[in-house]
């Protein structure tokens, strides 16, 4: 870990929150995609 | 066109709600502020321009969802769409009617409320003037928002979410003009910019409003 000095809190919070938000949007999009794909496959099978 | 305008005005006045309600709301918001921030004169005079403008914004917001709702519900809007009067003109007229019943009364009532908020005396003229220039933009932008949400049930809250960010430039300029006047400074720049926003809105938004109405009436 580099010496972040006085600003360690701000820098770590920035990285922490940003990464959390990115994981959130990636995760949500991924889950939504999987669900839609599965649901569509089911309907196409039954139809 | 004139007939339509008069009809809308009569409806607004008869319904009673629009006219007096907006003014009452304006009054209530302004009265609430000293209770919230404390009665210190310096503080109140400093924030008076902003509070008056924000209160005007919110009061204008109140009657927006009614602009097209009644006509849409009873089918009158669909009929008006087939009339020789273009929807763009209809949108403009609706905005004008809203302004006459909501914006204009606000402009006239503002000095009294400015008095309650200890607004610096030399700013009263600018208060009325800036509101006169800015409130037509509020009505036109609001009419656009109303057209977007007319078909929706309980579109009122969504309407506010859509319209309030669009109000920000007018708010910035209008409040700034009054603040400058309160400080004895020249307020031409913000006033002109507010005017430009109003004129631009009146020129462009009727087209966007008509487009939205056409979509909803399909």
């Amino acid at each position, binding site marked *: 870990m580099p010496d972040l000095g006085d600003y360690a809190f701000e820098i770590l919070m920035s990285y922490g929150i940003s990464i959390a938000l990115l994981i959130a949007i990636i995760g949500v999009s991924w889950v939504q995609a999987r669900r839609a794909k599965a649901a569509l496959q089911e309907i196409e099978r039954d139809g | 066109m004139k007939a339509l305008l008069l009809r809308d005005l009569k409806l607004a006045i008869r319904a009673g709600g629009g006219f007096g309600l907006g003014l009452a709301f304006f009054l209530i918001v302004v009265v609430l502020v000293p209770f919230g921030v404390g009665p210190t004169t310096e503080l109140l005079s400093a924030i008076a321009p902003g509070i008056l403008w924000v209160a005007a914004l919110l009061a204008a917001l109140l009657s927006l969802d009614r602009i097209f709702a009644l006509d849409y519900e009873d089918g009158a809007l669909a009929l008006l769409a087939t009339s020789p009067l273009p929807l763009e003109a209809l949108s403009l007229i609706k905005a004008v009617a809203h302004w006459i019943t909501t914006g204009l009364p606000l402009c006239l009532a503002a000095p009294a409320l400015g008095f309650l908020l200890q607004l610096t005396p030399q700013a009263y003229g600018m208060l009325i003037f800036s509101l006169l220039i800015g409130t037509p933009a509020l009505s036109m932008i609001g009419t656009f928002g109303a057209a977007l949400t007319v078909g929706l049930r309980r579109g009122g809250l969504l309407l506010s979410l859509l319209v309030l960010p669009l109000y920000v430039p007018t708010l910035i300029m209008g409040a700034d003009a009054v603040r400058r006047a309160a400080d004895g400074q020249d307020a031409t*720049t913000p006033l002109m910019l507010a005017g430009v926003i109003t004129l631009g809105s009146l020129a462009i938004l009727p087209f966007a409003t008509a487009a939205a109405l056409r979509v909803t009436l399909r």
Partner: protein
Amino acid sequence: MSLWEYANPKKFMEWTGPVLVWVAILAAICTVVGLVWGFFFTPDDFRQGSTVKIIYLHVPSALMAINAWLMMLVASLIWLVRRHHVSALAAKAAAPVGVTMTMIALVTGALWGAPIWGTYWEWDPRLTSFLILFLFYLGYMALWAAIEDPDTAADLTSILCIVGSIFAILSRYAAQFWAQGLHQGASLSLDKEENVADVFWIPLLVAMAGFVLLFLALVLLRTRTEVRLRRMKALQARARRA
């Protein structure tokens, strides 16, 4: 074959499948490399100290916050003119990604400015403009959610996007005008326009590339989801009618 053929939903699903995988991989590489490089392997700025490390998040996210809206604007125009459903769905798909980018830009912007301002929020004109953009995104997403008929929703949100774009630009200048009176004087000049030395600039470029690719990957992924959902609704409607 015209470029527009690729906008046909079936064709769209075909070509975006493999493309998405590559874009996602590239996005992951660039983002991770850019951020790791910037965080661990760059020196401190003589003026801003170690807080300069925040630019590797703030600049790319701010860039994408705006570009996402621009993409939505273009997609909206294409929908209104050419009625390609994929275009409308792409605009809808991009909004949540754009709003996330805006949030990252706001948070990192505030945290970056905190040591200089002495407070965690300052009504700096640039940050304020992003706050307004955030509200526009919310309104856009809310309108999509509120309308049942997909084509009506696509039309109305497209109109909102266009009008919103005009007012967003207006608000940017209004916010600059509004913030002139700030007793501190100039706003934070955090932009890429500032002369940034190569040692900062190159990892920044990599991070920016990463965010662009990440945006692309997410929009492709989300648009594919929307296309599938649309097809599902069509099949269900057909089944109900049968």
